[in-house]
């Protein structure tokens, strides 16, 4: 392909009627931009693949030393112990993780959904413009702050006076409940923001039709708008739950590091994320079995959250009501 001075300019005089594509500066620029954009998109995909690769290879190397049967069958998780005392049963970490996540969900999901209903159906536009940014600030607070809030405020000034002093339960300084409460507060913005989006796109005609049948505002919100937005709401729940499962700093600080098979929320538990932090911080020699166990735990966590995200995507697609 020859480059002529004519083909590099776009002056009308140089335009012939030929439709044959020739090399031009414009086309060259287009190609470069396309390449750059592809590179940016590919980078994030590459990073994801690389992470999965690292997780997978190290996990496989971990299972050369520890059998899958022990990993899934044992109920003790003591990788830092010596010799015979070493046990690699994942269940204490899974129960710890889900204990915190379920407490968080039972607080965060209703709170988030109710705030979303308020913002979408009840709040005046003025109120919404004030309340929504404030709620989004909540999403911007570093999670480590939530962790200390649980440790130095929720446990000593809320849980202990009520549960220990008044009701007589023993409350550990590190406990799953305080961690669950702050993680619950933490996921409110996620639930609220996504649910509100789902509620807002419900067509107004549906609300008017409900009002025309003699509905009160509560009837309209609860019996018509929420069911119509159900797929989006459920998806926001699943996303928030997987965020609670993956939450790290707050639970590491507030729930402690006791990997015991225990569902008492007033005692210390260790979540999968907290264990990863623990190993990463400590002086565990690289390449040791304890070190490799970190990858096995991380891979389990990754598989769990990925499954939940896939389910939430599927729910969104499957149960979406199509409105014009």
């Amino acid at each position, binding site marked *: 392909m020859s480059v002529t001075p004519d083909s590099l300019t776009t002056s009308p005089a140089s335009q012939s009627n030929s439709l044959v594509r020739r090399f031009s500066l414009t086309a060259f620029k287009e190609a470069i931009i396309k390449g750059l954009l592809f590179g940016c998109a590919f980078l994030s995909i590459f990073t994801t693949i690389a992470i999965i690769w690292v997780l997978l290879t190290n996990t496989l190397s971990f299972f050369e030393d520890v059998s899958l049967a022990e990993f899934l069958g044992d109920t003790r998780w003591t990788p830092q112990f010596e010799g015979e005392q070493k046990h690699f049963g994942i269940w204490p970490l899974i129960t710890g993780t889900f204990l915190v996540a379920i407490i968080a969900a039972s607080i965060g999901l209703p709170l988030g959904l109710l705030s979303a209903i308020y913002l979408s159906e009840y709040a005046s536009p003025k109120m919404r413009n004030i309340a929504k940014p404030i709620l989004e600030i909540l999403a911007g607070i570093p999670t480590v702050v939530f962790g200390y809030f649980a440790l130095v405020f929720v446990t000593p000034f809320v849980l202990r006076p009520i549960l220990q002093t008044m009701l007589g339960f023993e409350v550990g300084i590190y406990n799953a409940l305080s961690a669950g409460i702050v993680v619950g507060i933490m996921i409110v913005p996620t639930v609220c923001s996504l649910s509100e989006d789902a509620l807002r796109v419900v067509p107004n*005609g*549906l609300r008017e039709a409900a009002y025309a049948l003699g509905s009160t505002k509560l009837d309209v919100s609860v019996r018509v708008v929420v069911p119509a937005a159900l797929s989006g709401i459920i998806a926001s729940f699943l996303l928030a739950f997987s965020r609670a499962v993956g939450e790290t700093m707050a639970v590491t600080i507030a729930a402690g590091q006791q990997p015991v098979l225990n569902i008492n929320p007033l005692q210390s538990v260790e979540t999968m994320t907290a264990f990863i932090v623990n190993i990463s911080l400590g002086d565990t020699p690289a390449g040791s079995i304890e070190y490799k166990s970190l990858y096995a735990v991380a891979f389990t966590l990754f598989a769990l959250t990925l499954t939940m995200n896939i389910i939430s995507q599927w729910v969104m697609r499957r149960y979406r009501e199509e409105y014009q």
Partner: protein
Amino acid sequence: MTLNSSPQPETPSVPTPGPNNDSPDMNTANKSGVVPKLRPTDEQPPTTALGQFAKLFQNSRNEPGVPNPDQAPKIEAQDLCFFYGEKQALFNVTIKVPPRSVTAFIGPSGCGKSTFLRTLNRMNDIIEGTRLAGKALFDGQDIYAPNVDVVQLRKKVGMVFQKSTPFPKSIFDNVAYGPMIAGQRNRRVLGEIVETCLKRAALWNEVKDRLAESALALSGGQQQRLCIARSLATNPDVLLMDEPASALDPASTARIEDLIFELKQNYTIVIVTHNMQQAARVSDFTAFFFEGRLIEIGETQTLFTRPKEKKTEDYITGRFG
């Protein structure tokens, strides 16, 4: 729409209806030339632009039993004005709607006919920044009085919208919605209500075997009849219909029109329509709105064949709007 204060906006001057040979749909011979405005009862075929409507009334089924306009009105508006913020949308509308009749509101887009319809069950309350002056009465009671329960009013004055709005629930739950929010929990009673209303809305035979299926799976015409059935389930006295057939195909439209004719036996119906043929076909009375004012109201046949106002005639003969 411009809402100037001039009550008589300029309209293009048009020749008075009179000698007029372009009535292609008149198959009867009409070569006589000069024929003044015709009454449809005359033997001669109609020849004016209005004649197309006169033809409609030759086999009119709403001729017998035209409700007596003098009986106590079901709905009444007195000097009703309505504002969206600063903008006035309705100017001193005064109207009486007799019970068990069909009244059609016609007029060009933006003339206020839908707005007026929505004042009759206070649907405009939902829109922020609206204001109403004057009176709207239902069975003689001022519906804008401070002690009026809007929820009760809307149960008595049902509404069907232009776009069918089935809830994302089963067919059964859609129809049972009104009674359920009113506190009816008895499944057997609900079942009876659902059956009665679906029958009245001429939908029962099509859906009786799949009441538990989603209402969203129905066709457009079926959805609209479902919405009518749903409105009937709250046992209203009045049905307000805002262009109920404008999004439907001709066959579905015909079914809705048949239905309106049936429902007239038990309900007072007010219908907003863009389709003048439809207004002429289904209604006993027609009101013509223009620029937020009620220009003329009368028996449908009279209004379409012998309109009193020039503007009405211009509109229904298609000279504007």
